[in-house]
């Protein structure tokens, strides 16, 4: 079984972002960037499937600027086999990302796509569902357990009321929730080895897809500030 994992380069989750004073956006200058935490979990799951002999190959793909290759290298260092970079300097909306991924799926023919459930910058929580819709595939979103068997995958989903299990015929799209697994760190030798793993780069523009934005950001504002309150001495 071949597994495809889309990974996004986002702001590091420890960074508290600031809105630019003119409201034109969020200040990302000199901010630490990293792999989206949910995508780390998605890669880990794919690599474990490979270690268990269930997956034959793990391919990672990222859509974004040149620097997205850094997160692809990180993914290769934790065990992905091969990487694809679709380069663009535009911020693509989830539907556009899903269209690009559909194209990658057509080329690569994976049986399982594992996305993160949401990217922690735009917090959309859409891309995996949209990709599944465009492909006509079933979807197992917010997964806390992924159990593939012959031709199917059982997915336990974290839902508001508790847990739900669905069975999907392959090929399928799964999106990872936080408790799916605990991602490993890349070891130094593996980081070195990752530099030699194949990374193929293409421009999004070459795909011939309509990825034009439908949403226009009118303004960005900081949330209403909370005043720190008082400290009380006791419960009484």
């Amino acid at each position: 079984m071949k597994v495809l994992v889309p990974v996004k380069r986002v702001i590091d989750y420890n960074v508290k972002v600031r809105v630019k004073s003119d409201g034109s956006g969020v200040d990302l200058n000199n901010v630490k960037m990293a792999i989206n935490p949910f995508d780390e979990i998605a890669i880990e799951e794919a690599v474990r499937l490979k270690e268990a002999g269930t997956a034959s190959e793990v391919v990672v793909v990222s859509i974004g600027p040149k620097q997205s290759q850094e997160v692809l290298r990180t993914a290769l260092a934790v065990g992905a086999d091969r990487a694809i970079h679709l380069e663009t300097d535009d911020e693509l909306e989830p539907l556009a990302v899903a269209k690009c991924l559909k194209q990658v799926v057509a080329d690569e023919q994976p049986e399982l796509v594992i996305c993160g459930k949401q990217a922690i910058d735009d917090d959309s929580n859409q891309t995996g569902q949209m990709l599944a819709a465009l492909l006509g595939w079933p979807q197992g979103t917010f997964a806390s357990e992924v159990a593939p068997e012959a031709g199917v995958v059982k997915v336990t989903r974290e839902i508001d009321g508790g847990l739900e299990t669905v069975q999907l015929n392959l090929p399928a799209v799964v999106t990872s929730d936080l408790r799916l697994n605990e991602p490993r760190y890349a070891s130094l030798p593996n980081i070195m080895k990752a530099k030699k793993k194949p990374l193929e780069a293409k421009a999004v523009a070459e795909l011939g897809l309509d990825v034009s934005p439908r949403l226009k950001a009118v303004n960005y504002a900081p949330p209403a500030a909370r005043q720190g309150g008082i400290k009380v001495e006791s419960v009484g």
Partner: protein
Amino acid sequence: IGGDIDLLVAGENAQPAAEAAASIAGVRKVIHADNAAYAHQLAENVSKLVVELAEGYTHILAPGTTTGKNLAPRVAALLGVNQLSDIIAVEAADTFKRPIYAGNAIATVKSADAVKVITVRGTAFDAAEASGGSATVEACDSVHQHADVSFVGEELAKSDRPELTAASVVISGGRGMGNGENFDMLNKVADKLGAAVGASRAAVDAGFVPNDMQVGQTGKMVAPELYIAVGISGAIQHLAGMKDSKIIVAINKDEEAPIFQVADYGLVADLFEAVPELESRL
């Protein structure tokens, strides 16, 4: 947003829900699709139904729950439009506010799509009146059953306490609680206050309590009248889920804990002393 409002009730044996929907104030029509295919709200099936019914509508809204988030992007992609996630305000029929970066920025976005597919953050809006309406209920017989998905089972949390996102008081515990048994202290306080009990991710990850209790960026968004955080440090991801609460009370033994920066009332104390004392005084 304006315009006529129709509701879709898709489920199995959902007649009571359709009737309840028809009496909500301001609703014109309820479309009731009753079939086993819709029993578990599988997005593969319900999205096809919504797309079939979508013609003539300018806006398609779903709640920002796990069900809504599972469904709405699928509907949007089938319609070839983008989706707006978790809106917190309507500025105009095509312009909405939504939080990004764990609520550290609020973006105002204008959509150029012909149909706006939206998920709505429940805590940001007042609920419609449950009575006063007299909508017609129209049966819809369309059945969409995706061949590649089936429902296996579910484990739902059972509780007599109010639902987290709807409760007017929430008391949450974090890693500082130490273990699951200690959450009984919070349950006792909750029972006296009619509160729901929540948790930080650390408490859920440590296995103290089930996942449906997680409050935060990737858990539930709550905005009660009173939020009591016990043994929670106040990481940005946790704050994202509760900082719109009216009054925040924090109990933490570390006076430097970031939770105190958003708390209206902070108590620097050992929770194992403070919580039982709080309970005994209620």
